[in-house]
């Protein structure tokens, strides 16, 4: 290693390889993402860009470093299937026999009550192939059944989201703020979980009034404290106790606060995708493919 040129060359080759592998290749694969009719149960295009106010809210979220404490990426350890009996058909005995033959742990006693309260799940958290064979056994005797896919993992169990996040979920965000630390809860689906805008506004104003023991700092600078004029603002926060402003005063969210709340409410990734299947609560037109 006598010469500078050799050092330069080896550094160049090493860095060029990594640049090609982790900048160029991902750009070709995910950087050229487009809207696709990728959703499992409908023909709608996914993803959709956020509405304008929510996009302004994203920049409030970025400017205040919200991503320092909140991730926006739900993870999943795997998935399993539920089998739902939709219609017991006309021959209850044959159905019971078929299910017992399919050997899915349904006893004669429980098989008797199968037709009551449909549709109902008859198998929970089973592997995909067992679920499929059970459904075909059900269909073979003229009854109807379907497979529902359930995502698994601690994030899902905390109801932080119905499925894992995938690259497509972030296509129109600029910047993409995935976050790397969970000092606060994951927000990938906060709009799904907490749709109430007044809750968000009160929570931003004084987090501990809504969540006991929260570590979140208050964001009172997103609100304006002003004298109640002849026409009190309809947007003024309804606060009680120590937080309530003195008589004749009101606390009104500034545009930034409204934008931020619009952004938070727009955070939801609950469209079933082929690469991240889940069962939507909407009535299914086709069965989601079990993978």
């Amino acid at each position, binding site marked *: 290693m006598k010469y500078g040129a050799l050092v330069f060359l080896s550094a160049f080759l090493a860095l060029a390889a990594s640049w090609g592998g982790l900048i160029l290749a991902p750009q070709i694969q995910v950087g050229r993402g487009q809207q696709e009719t990728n959703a499992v149960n409908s023909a709608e295009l996914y993803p959709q860009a956020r509405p304008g106010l929510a996009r302004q809210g994203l920049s409030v979220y970025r400017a205040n470093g919200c991503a320092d404490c909140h*991730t926006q990426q739900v993870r999943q350890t795997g998935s399993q299937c539920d089998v739902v009996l939709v219609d017991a058909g006309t021959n209850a005995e044959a159905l019971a026999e078929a299910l017992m033959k399919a050997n899915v742990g349904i006893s004669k006693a429980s098989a008797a009550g199968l037709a009551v309260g449909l549709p109902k799940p008859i198998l929970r958290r089973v592997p995909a192939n067992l679920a499929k064979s059970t459904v075909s056994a059900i269909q073979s005797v003229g009854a109807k059944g379907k497979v529902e896919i359930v995502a698994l993992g601690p994030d899902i169990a905390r109801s932080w989201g119905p499925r894992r996040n995938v690259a497509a979920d972030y296509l129109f965000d600029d910047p993409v703020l995935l976050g790397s630390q969970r000092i606060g809860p994951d927000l990938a689906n906060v709009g799904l979980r907490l749709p109430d805008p007044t809750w968000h506004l009160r929570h931003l104003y004084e987090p501990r009034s809504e969540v006991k023991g929260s570590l979140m700092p208050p964001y009172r600078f997103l609100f304006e404290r002003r004298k109640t004029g002849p026409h009190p603002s309809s947007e003024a926060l309804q606060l009680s106790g120590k937080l309530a402003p003195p008589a004749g005063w009101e606390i009104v969210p500034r545009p930034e606060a409204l934008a931020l709340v619009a952004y938070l409410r727009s955070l939801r990734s609950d469209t079933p995708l082929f690469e991240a299947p889940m069962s939507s609560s909407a009535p299914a037109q086709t069965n989601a493919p079990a993978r």
Partner: protein
Amino acid sequence: MTASESTASSPVAPVSDADSLNASCRWPLLVLFISAAGWAVLASFFQLIASIKFHSPDFLADSPWTTYGRVHDAAGSALLYGFGIQAGLGIALRICTGTATLPAARQWIVTFGATLWNLGVLVGIVGILGGDNTGYENLQLPHYAAMLLFVGYLLAGVTIVFTLHGRRQPCLSSPQWFVLAAMFWFAWIFTTATWLLLLSTVRGVEQSVIDWWYSGNLTVVWLGLVGLGTGLYFLEESRDAAGTRDYRPLFVFWTLILFGSWTGIPSGAPVPVWMPTLSMIATLALAVPLLTIAVTVYGGQPGLRGNSNSRAGSRFIQFALAAWVAATALKVISALPEAASRIDFTWFMTAQAELNTYGFYAMMMFGGIYWIVPQVTGMEWPLRKAVGVHFWLAAAGVLLIVLPLAIGGVAQGMKLNHASIPFIDVTAATLPYLRVSTMGDVLIFIGHLLFLSNLLAVTVRVVRAWGMPRYRSVMMEPSAGEVEP
């Protein structure tokens, strides 16, 4: 340690010669080091504010300029760009200059580059506090600051590389490979990240991929190259029998740049799975340079550590090498899929990053500066005891941050994986650990104040002595050694 001792024990050149040569880069170095120390003070001050918010969330919460997200990012950027890279540039300049003389024109170019760099950091930190944070981890400085940083870096970096042409030995020494590669490395990764994230932004999650790639290259490769280069420089100069052929630095160099540059993508990221998998394999492969360094430093060659204890800054450098071994070991362990799923998104990752950036890199920079400044100014440290105190403050500070956060992070990860434990309880359980780490932030802050005072004091002395014709003649002429300022 006096000036004459420090230069006399250096094997490279006769005392007199070394003195006049060393003196040639003292002004750019003082500028770089003092501004770096200033940013270190500011960074730890911001970090302290951020840390106090875990004791009382209402602390300084009513102004947007001091909200947690902004202060925390300002602290990180000030430490990384203001202190880290700037100090690294200074040490790279010293290592590349070696026994050559730095022409006056180049001194000015480096100083001008450093000024632009500092302006960039300043504008960027104000931008972050004012709400112009880019949102990309490790690249939070807004685009207008990035421009200044880029030009400043090019001026300083290119000049540093060109000083290698003036060298007297035909061979590059191993520390010179490290810093030469690092100079090139940062130019490339910073251009890529700035261009594709801030100027003509790519779409979707590719932004995160680029940011992860940049972060990995910056924290593993760049900090690794400059930090280990400084360590090697120190070890080589303190070894009495120089000139023995040793291929281990070369091996560490190649494995570090080969594997380190692929390590960025976190496991479980919402991207196609081949990317995190590649990064996982590359991170596991970091075990190779890790073991090599561990064997080199701790593997029964007493000469490497033996006679270096008397030098100012040597304790910093030994601490830093140990911290690099520990931080890299933690990184390798946390890349194992079993571990990754338990510690992702927890304070453990913060602890690992802190051990790498502060325990390893910043400590190495302190050690290097404490050692180099007496060489180039010909003066010992005015606040001599403060050097030792700074070491203990910094070492205790890092440990008080890293240990609680690592332990707390593992506990937090275990709880996060049990969905039956409410999230608010998971957070509450991390609080005691966070509050202990505030102590560490306080110690580090005091340490930085001592560091800055020492540098300012030495500069005052240099400026005074500069006015003295006697000193000037001494620095220019061969009979230098014995002068006490």
